[in-house]
């Protein structure tokens, strides 16, 4: 009986929400393109190959972190420790990257391994205990920072091999390696999220955990994979950053988690789980990059930039909350 009412409400709500959803789906792309257009009119320096490459290069580290955290947020979780993982993986990789010691594969592999293990540890604590991911990763964020300082004895690890420095700082056929790695990572992450069983399960777990479980999905397996994946991507970002700045900094990546989460949210990933796309996150990261680059070019001080960025994040979430299905 009451169901009749619900159906009615749904119908009414439908047209209104469909309209807003339509705005949101293409709106992000539209907002991105129009901001780029406006900037290219205001300042001629914006729309040059060189400047665009700078933007994408600057964005790439944040985008990689955002891809990882998108997986996590889609399952209804959160990972605050990615910034610390950047430092841990960076320091670990740098330790093995001094000239004439190991081939370049070794520091990369060990750095990645460190991130994967760190992520797996997050997943393990989250699935074994009933502690919410926010608290667990808040803890491991601090643990990770401590580990980075311990491993580096609090000092930057410098004097790295040229081949290591090439990974994040070099160019192939004039294209910065960071951009190439970003494109490859984006492609792989998109396929994982949208084309594989585990990707589908991420949406299911975040959309309705109980229903996912009743459909035969092992929640703990999905969560373990998601946090491990996020750790792996954070480690990749850490290795690339270390290579780019040619130093393993124990203080690197501080606050990066917030930028990555912001990119995912601006890109339409709902913090309540169950929705989000890799394309959205990529555009979210690019949008952040374009706006801060534009504001730089317009000589707006970084103080104001932060106010603008914060406003954009809230705006994106407001749009998301009007958008969320099932909020009658």
């Amino acid at each position, binding site marked *: *009986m*009451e*169901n*009749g*009412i*619900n*159906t*009615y409400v*749904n119908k009414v709500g*439908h047209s209104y929400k469909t309209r807003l959803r339509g705005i949101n789906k293409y709106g992000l792309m539209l907002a991105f393109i129009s901001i780029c257009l406006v900037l290219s009119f205001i300042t001629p320096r914006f729309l040059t190959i060189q400047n665009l490459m700078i933007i994408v290069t600057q964005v790439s580290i944040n985008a990689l972190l955002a891809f990882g955290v998108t997986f996590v947020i889609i399952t209804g979780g959160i990972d605050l420790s990615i910034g610390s993982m950047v430092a841990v993986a960076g320091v670990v990789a740098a330790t093995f990257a001094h000239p004439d010691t190991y081939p370049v594969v070794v520091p990369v592999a060990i750095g990645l391994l460190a991130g994967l293990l760190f992520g797996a540890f997050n997943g393990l604590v989250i699935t074994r205990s009933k502690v919410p991911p926010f608290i667990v990763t808040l803890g491991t964020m601090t643990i990770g920072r401590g580990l980075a300082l311990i491993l580096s004895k609090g000092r930057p690890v410098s004097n790295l091999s040229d081949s290591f420095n090439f990974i994040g700082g070099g160019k192939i056929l004039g294209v910065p390696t960071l951009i190439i790695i970003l494109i490859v990572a984006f492609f792989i992450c998109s*396929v994982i999220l949208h*084309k*594989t*069983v585990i990707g*589908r*399960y991420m*949406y*299911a777990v975040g*959309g*309705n955990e*109980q*229903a*996912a*479980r*009743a*459909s*035969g*999905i*092992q929640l703990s397996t999905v969560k373990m994979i998601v946090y491990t994946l996020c750790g792996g991507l954070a480690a990749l970002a850490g290795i690339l950053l270390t290579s780019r700045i040619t130093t393993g900094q124990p203080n690197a990546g501080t606050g990066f988690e917030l930028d990555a989460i912001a990119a995912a949210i601006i890109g339409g990933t709902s913090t309540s789980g*169950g*929705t989000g796309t890799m394309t959205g996150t990529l555009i979210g990261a690019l949008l952040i990059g374009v706006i801060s680059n534009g504001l730089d070019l317009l000589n707006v001080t970084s103080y104001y930039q932060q106010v603008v960025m914060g406003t954009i994040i809230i705006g994106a979430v407001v749009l998301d909350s009007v958008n*969320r*299905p*099932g909020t009658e």
Partner: protein
Amino acid sequence: MPLEPNNILEVRGLTKTFSGVKALNNVQLSLRKGEVHALMGENGAGKSTFMKILMGLLTPDSGQINFDGYPFKVGSVHDVLKSGISMIHQEILAVPELTVAQNIFLGRETNGRLFDWLNDRHLEKQARELLEQMRVSIRPDARMKELSVAEMQMVEIAKAISNQAKVIIMDEPTSALAATEVTTLFGIIRELTRKGVAIIYISHRMDEIFALADTITVLRDGNYIGTKPAADLDEAALITMMVGRELDTLFPESESQQGEEVLSVNNLSSKGKFSNINFVVHAGEVLGMAGLMGVGRTEIARAIFGLDRIHAGTVCIKGKPTAITSPQEAIQAGIGYVSEDRKQVGLIPGLSVQYNMTLASLSNYTSGLLIGSRKESEAATTMMADLRIKATGPSQKVVYLSGGNQQKVVIGKVLLASPSLIILDEPTRGIDVGAKAEIYKLIARLKAAGIAIVLISSELPELLGLSDRVLVLSKGKQTALLSKDEATQETIMRYAMQP
């Protein structure tokens, strides 16, 4: 309307329609001061709609309510409480972190002045007096979450009394109480009625009704059936009033064609939920599971499906003992479960019809590491057509479908995992009559296709119309396993209420 001087509440011609379906049709009630008036009816008879109207939660389409000699304008819950009608809800509505005293006086601490100082000491003193008056020993400064369900129930009653209620509605107040607590509650009720408070008492327990009630009013399918003094009725006469309707042609005829044994359950027990459950289901058979709400039917289903733990007993699938500890294993063993709670356990609202339907069988559509989009959408589209799911397409989100279509999506999901046994838990709850008939036809088709079905339902006509045998439960125990010939509404009700 002539008003009896002793009547505190007079309801006449109350009608409420939900999108064309009459939930209440011309319902009446006369409540005398100081009486316990039992309101009886099956699930879905309209009792809760009626009470929700009285409490100001719903607005009636038509009808008159006179309260305490004056026409009663149904307004907000706040106004209703102030005028002296209180309700003790089946699910307790209390703030767990606040104290007993704070809960009792919640919303009335300072006569509505929001910035007055709170005096907890004073509230606690008042609460202590109140509780002593009721002869219950609950500390007024204890936090609500520290109390047992029975104690919380008592606090709710204290709240109603402190509200100077003239009418208290009690909806299944004993469902969570132990025998001694029930005695205490009855003592309090008798004390209240001596002071002239009228009680509307809703319960499925016959013994309580006959021990307490002065008058009994029966509703059936939203219609007023009659009001009689409790002394003029016996259990059998009351049950006939409650269920006395004919089975209609909603249910397709189907021959029982029992095949091999698919599921057998032996001495299945789960602490505090159910014990010693034994039954067998065969291919092409529908086993009905009857009983009042909360007697353990859903818990049995969840345990068989691996959602909850089993503490003792065995489950055999096609004769083989099978230990099922997760839904994943249950699905692999060929069990499908359509939960009573479509929204919480059945569906992922933000995902499409297709994604919901293929979720339990996703590995069937993969090629290599990736999901084969074509294979997946073919499976979903075929199932949608087969179940006549009305949606704009396989990519529509399920949150926008009607209740009946959502239910079909859940059934479709279960079917795509090709089960040999399906447990349907209240498959027609909250869906309209037309969609119900379609679900019934579907059940008959599944049965004809040789699938074993366990059907849990609170609607007796549905259970009788579809089941080949009926298992009856009462308070977590199996009280009867009736053949189709033995199963009637009366026998089922009798066994379901067996203590």
